[in-house]
């Protein structure tokens, strides 16, 4: 199976029960739509179980970053279980600790403060995307 050379997969937990899950989902969309639209692709995590072998090939085709809301790490665990080992994991609840001024409270519509937090998470995901692509480029050069 061919590995995509220029795209990074992002799998978000989307955790419906926690504000951090909503932050992970929105941050992932910010990367896909605004920060790195040409470099990233995604898939719904529950589709690994509900879908076919085509969907489960995702992490084999794309080097994949798991974005998790909490330390249960469903995106990391689910991607590894059904598709392939992610190249990196970003955990929202850990990033939040760096910004004690910003709180995640809502599971539905994000406040301005929560959007700011989502953007900070998005920027960390984007930096990881660059790192993954840079590493791949380096591999290409060195063979």
């Amino acid at each position, binding site marked *: 199976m061919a590995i995509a050379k220029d795209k990074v997969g992002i799998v*978000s*937990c*989307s*955790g*419906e*029960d*926690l504000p951090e*899950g909503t932050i992970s*989902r*929105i941050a*992932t*969309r*910010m990367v896909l*739509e605004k920060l790195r639209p040409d470099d990233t692709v*995604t*898939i*719904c*995590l*529950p*589709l*690994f*179980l*509900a*879908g076919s072998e085509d969907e489960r090939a995702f992490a084999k085709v794309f080097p994949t970053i798991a974005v998790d809301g909490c330390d*249960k790490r*469903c*995106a990391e*665990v*689910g991607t590894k*279980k059904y598709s392939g080992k992610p190249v990196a994991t970003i955990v929202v609840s850990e990033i939040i600790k760096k910004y004690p001024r910003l709180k995640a409270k809502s*599971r*539905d519509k994000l406040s301005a403060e929560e959007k700011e937090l989502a953007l900070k998470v998005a920027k960390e995901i984007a930096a990881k995307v660059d790192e993954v692509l840079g590493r791949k480029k380096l591999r290409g050069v060195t063979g």
Partner: protein
Amino acid sequence: MSKSGKIFVISCSGIGKALGTVGRTAMYEVVEKLRPNEATTVCLPLITIGDETVLKLVRTNSCISVDGCPFQCARKNIEASKGKLVASFMVTDVLRENRGLKPEGVIELNPKGLKLASRLAEKIVRQIDETNKNR
């Protein structure tokens, strides 16, 4: 607060489409505003990875799936986990009944998408009331 005894409204993660956001928004409208004492939710990814605590909850309490698209990830994950599924909703069905309400936006739904979510929420609430009546 304990979740046991409530009806679980479980929406798909729908990260790729506005339809997923409609389902998710409808679910929150139900569990946070319309029926907070009768309904609750749980993270679908916990079902996907087979979290024992969550599996026990969905196997012993009534569940309603809310899916954005015909892949029906919420329904299929609940079924695969032997959850107690009492009803399934798909955003595409509600959109067919409300053709003027085309949803747009995943990060933020447009007003038509929000209205569509409210229509779906009304249907979910009717199902919750029906399920509770028959208990």
